């Protein structure tokens, strides 16, 4: 069965990536920001997998699997930091994270 062409996959991937990027730039809650980072990475993953099928080449799919592992470890560290900050009773608002400025 023929699916949509590679361009469509790239379009969806670019949409996911931009959604994530906007989320990172605009949202204030660190949890939502981490979630948006994941969406960005998954957009890139979709592009990799779509291209890999299009090219008939396995390398892109292997890359995507590696990226999933990396994304998981990154979010673990991120969530760890958020929990540690929460225990310190720091407000969860990235705009208020302004002890360091100048």
């Amino acid at each position: 069965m023929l699916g949509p062409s590679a361009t469509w996959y790239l379009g969806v991937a670019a949409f996911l990536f931009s959604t994530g990027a906007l989320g990172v730039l605009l949202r204030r809650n660190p949890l939502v920001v981490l979630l948006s980072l994941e969406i960005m990475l998954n957009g890139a993953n979709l592009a990799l997998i779509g291209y890999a099928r299009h090219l008939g080449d396995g390398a892109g799919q292997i890359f995507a699997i590696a990226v999933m592992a990396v994304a998981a470890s990154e979010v673990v560290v991120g969530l760890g930091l958020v929990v540690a900050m929460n225990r310190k009773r720091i407000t969860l608002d990235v705009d208020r994270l302004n002890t360091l400025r100048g």
Partner: protein
Amino acid sequence: MIQRPHIDWFALAPVNALLAAAAIALLAAVLVPRRARRTTAATVCALGYAVAFGFAIALYVRSAHGHGVVADAIRRDRFAELAQMIVAGAGVLATGISFRERMRDNHVAEYYALLAAAGSGMAFFVAANNLMTLFLGLEWLSISLYILCAIDRDLINGLEAGLKYLIIGGFGSAVLLFGSALVYGETGHLDFAGIASANRPHDALLLFGLAMIISGLGFKASAAPFHMWTPDVYEGAPTPVTAFMAAATKTVALLVLLRVLRTAFPQEAHLWTVAIAVIAVASLTIGNLAALVQRNVKRMLAYSSISHAGFMLIAVAANNALGGRALLYYLIPYAAMSLGSFAVVAARERELGVPVTFENLAGFGWERPLLGISMWTFMLGFAGFPLTGGFVGKFYVFAAAYRQGWTWLVIVGVIATLVSLYYYLGVVRAMFLRRTEDLQLAPIGGSPPRDALLQTAVVGCLVVTVGSFFAVQPLIDLAKHAANALPF
């Protein structure tokens, strides 16, 4: 029988030595009694870096002809080996600087484990020969550094720095990854040589991917306009971590940028040289102007590191063999000066227990002459004075740019150097021309004992900074052989 790719374990030795050090230090966190934990972990970490340094030298000697190893995923050549030597040297010194840092001793072994893991990620990253190893190496070193920034959970600034670094670093990596996906899709190759051979010079998506890869690496090299995390993270992270980040992360990010651009995108050189030149000018401008108004020394050094990213990008924009040589040479004294200056800041911070500003540096040069004179030398080196490697480095960078016809870029660089004199000499003035009494500090139990390891590390940095001026020929030869591994 299944065909396996041949694995050149020798080429992986520096990476594996550091990985082993990280694993042993992590075991020490549970198995070694609390009293001996700090010493054991630090020794293991320093030994790991020393062994990696030795392996990198051996590999440098035996890799005159660069080639891909492990199914072409990583590259064994003198370019990577010289970079690994810089990283390993920085790691040994950073361990020495870290040893007396005041941190709670319940996570001290993890600290050294992560320091070694970050180094091994860097050693892997500089050898990357395809987009996948590039991304994995980048994340490997970054995730280790995110945790190192926030390792002291009592320090709210550290947590804040770690989270900021993670969010902005993660954003940069995601941009790099999407760029890699575009390049892969347009060329059908992940390895750098394959991307270059696909030869699709006027492909809009490929160029978009290239721009995203440059931005992604720009975040790690803290070049403007991707620099916004740098001052906050450098200020908030524990000072020894900042020292290591400033020296080693910048080195590997710039070298990998040069490798990717030269080996994967030689056909697009007329476009990316301009882009890199623009980024260089932006970094020089923003870094220098913002550094002028800083009162906190760590923030000032962070902006100075942004402006130095600009200087070194001039060498990348030159896009010739001389530029490659200039970059590799310059990184040696630069790494030493960054480590040394942050080490001196760390020493002052431990004496006072408050963030170091220009005001509370008063009289430091007279109290601790060794550290004062070292800091003086590092500042002159950053500004590019003779008798330090910074002079030769800047000279080479400008020569490379001039040869390629980038006269205006050279002029911008010279102006930036003149502006930078103000804040570099400001540190010297604060240390030597202000009296300690002006500080009105209440002495509590006298000054802390001299920290022999930190002083040794600072002296090591001083020797490299000054030595790279006098031993310029051997180092240039070293850099020349390394730069020849790239297809110029």
